[in-house]
């Protein structure tokens, strides 16, 4: 009897374990899908952290208060790769996340229906008339402009923030002269006249992304030495790096980082983090007169030198002309976008909200960035002026590296470090870039 009982119980254990396994398997499957299609919550991946993320939380507060929709934010700086993998494998995507900036990938995602067009839920005429035209309108009304998320005449990126690059920053107490209008005038300024050691400061170190600050500098040169069409063809891989005009761009860039012009010599430029690059401007005696960087750098200045104020202690002037009036309207800028991957009512509401001026005004008030809407007001004099610069720009041209295939971008950034280190390697470096270019743009 007892033997029968023990046999029975071991069978019972085994059976109940099997049942448990089944329950676990089913439970695991269903809990994964519960997040999508929800009417009261939105999942969103953002690239922001720190103060930028805090500012975004401030933007969301009134939205959550009025709609009751909670936004689950994840900071994910590798979102493009993860979304690409998610699209291939068919796993869950966040409701909202930045779109890819790779033109080929963007078209692919649109074709696969992974990205939802803004046209399906947004008042487009209000959106395009209110936002900086360079962010929403393809030059000449082309149907495709993947650089700003337009495919087949439809918009896939909701532009929410923008920054202007290629600004020349200076310490107002050191540089008291008038802003030069041409690049030659800029190079002709004698720093010792203002008690500074060198003309420029530079800092190209940025961890695994080292070299991008240098690429901003050369982008601003190439887009002003040439017209917008040439610049875009270069990004698209249709112009070789050994092209005389690109070589000229590199040579001009090398003047900015030559031992005679850059603070501390090339090794200092290569080992200094971009955030600290401007620090010598505020030392006594000043290490340098100028630092070329985007609008965001003012936050680094006020953080490293508490008490300094934008507009009173430091200021900027726009990138000087490279000699062609026609190309002076080319402005280097970048944007932050939100794209929709799951079309849910809650996600639509959030997108509609982010496109409004009151939402973006919260951002502008928190400082550190420009919104994408033209009519926002800025208390920070630097951003007030940057908004004017953005508004008057003829073409907003994207940052070249960001829109090249990623191995081209990495090689391009690296090449600037290499020529800064050893200017005599220029020809070899450009030839190598041609090799990378030939392989990188081939559809695999």
């Amino acid at each position: 009897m007892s033997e029968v009982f023990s046999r029975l119980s071991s069978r019972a254990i085994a059976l109940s374990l099997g049942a448990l396994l089944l329950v676990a398997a089913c439970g695991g499957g269903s809990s994964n899908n519960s997040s999508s299609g929800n009417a009261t919550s939105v999942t969103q991946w953002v690239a922001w952290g720190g103060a930028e993320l805090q500012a975004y939380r401030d933007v969301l507060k009134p939205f959550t208060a009025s709609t009751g929709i909670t936004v689950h934010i994840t900071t994910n700086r590798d979102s493009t790769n993860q979304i690409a993998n998610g699209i291939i494998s068919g796993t869950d995507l966040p409701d909202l996340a930045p779109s890819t900036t790779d033109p080929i990938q963007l078209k692919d995602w649109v074709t696969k229906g992974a990205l939802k067009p803004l046209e399906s839920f947004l008042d487009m005429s209000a959106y395009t008339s209110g936002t900086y035209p360079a962010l929403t309108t393809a030059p000449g009304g082309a149907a495709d402009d993947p650089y700003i998320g337009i495919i087949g005449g439809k918009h896939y990126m909701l532009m929410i923030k923008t920054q202007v690059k290629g600004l020349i920053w200076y310490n107002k107490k050191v540089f008291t002269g008038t802003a030069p209008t041409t690049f030659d005038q800029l190079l002709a300024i004698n720093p010792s006249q203002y008690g500074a050691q060198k003309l420029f400061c530079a800092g190209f170190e940025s961890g695994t992304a080292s070299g991008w600050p240098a690429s901003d500098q050369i982008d601003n040169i190439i887009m002003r030495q040439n017209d917008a069409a040439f610049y875009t063809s270069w990004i698209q891989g249709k112009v070789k790096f050994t092209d005389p005009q690109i070589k000229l761009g590199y040579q001009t860039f090398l003047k900015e980082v030559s031992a005679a012009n850059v603070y501390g010599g090339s090794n200092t430029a290569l080992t200094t983090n971009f955030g600290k690059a401007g620090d010598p401007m505020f030392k006594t005696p000043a290490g340098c007169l100028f630092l070329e960087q985007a609008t965001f750098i003012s936050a680094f200045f006020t953080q490293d030198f508490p008490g300094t104020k934008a507009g009173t202690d430091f200021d900027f002037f726009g990138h000087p002309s490279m000699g062609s009036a026609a190309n002076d309207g080319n402005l280097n800028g970048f944007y932050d976008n939100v794209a929709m991957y799951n079309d849910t009512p809650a996600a639509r509401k959030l997108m509609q909200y982010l496109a409004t001026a009151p939402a973006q005004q919260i951002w502008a008030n928190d400082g550190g960035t420009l919104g994408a809407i033209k009519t926002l007001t800025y208390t920070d004099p630097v951003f007030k002026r940057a908004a004017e610069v953005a508004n008057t720009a003829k073409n907003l041209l994207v940052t070249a590296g960001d829109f090249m295939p990623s191995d081209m971008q990495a090689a391009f950034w690296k090449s600037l470090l290499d020529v800064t280190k050893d200017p005599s390697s220029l020809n070899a470096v450009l030839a190598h870039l041609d090799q990378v270019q030939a392989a990188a743009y081939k559809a695999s």
Partner: protein
Amino acid sequence: MDQIITAIGAIVLVPLVLLGYILLGERVIERLPERIQEWFRPYFWALPAIGFATIFMVYPLLRTVVISFRNNADTTWVGFDNYVYFFTFPSTLTSLRNSLLWLVFYTFFAVGLGLIIAIMVDRVRYESLAKIAIFLPVPISAVAASIIWKFMFDYQAPGTTQTGTLNALLGVVGHEPVAWLVNSTTNNAALIFVGIWSATGFAMVIISASLKAISSEVLEAARIDGANEFRIVQLIVTPLLWPTITVIGTTMIINALKTFDIVYVLTAGAYDTDVIATQMFSQLAHAHFSRAAAVGVVLFAAIVPLLVVNIRRFQQQEEQR
């Protein structure tokens, strides 16, 4: 909350399921003839482990080899294209050269210094203290160690206060600061040095343990026969330590070939410091999956013979005991 349930599920359910597998299986096996039972039981018990190994190790390995001969979209065969790329492109060749530098210098110095230090501390009074000091870098995560050395190698504009320890020292003797991680004559050496710094302690501890196992009678006999300490190290200690040195040496070679973290944190492969593993990572990051697979296969092929040597040595040592 979901995560907690999942975690509990994983911890409780997985062993329960395995237990269920064995209990259920035993009920079936019990009914088989005795001889078949004896033959079948080990296979049955090992099946879950073999299954896991197949799904999570063998399959990915074979799949990687297959992908390395495919195009990136995995639609057609491309023959040896990905391997040709790896062995002809200038930047990948640089990474290959650097991995060789790592292999030679990292292994030689980590094992050599480990051996010398182990023999020397064996003869001093403060042995454990000295060993702790040398071993200290071993438990530090490679990322943390690299960040420590990032500060040591730090470079500031000439003429300003040097915050990097090494350049501050150079400043004391009136030398210009050196951009250790940028300068092509120093950067690979600097990276390999960090590797040696964090591995020597490990080599020392293992060699030291094996040194303790050498019977003191052998050494005494040699001393009575009039051998000096150098002769003892040369003729008795080193040959007796040889199996251990081989094992440590092959382990270090494998470490050298797999090096990633130190290079990634300190230079991210800039200024010609890429190694095979960082190259594989950047190919992946740039969505060149089949090229990354080819790099992985090359790396794997380089490591397998060493693993075989290592496992043979372990077996020999086991047999000797």
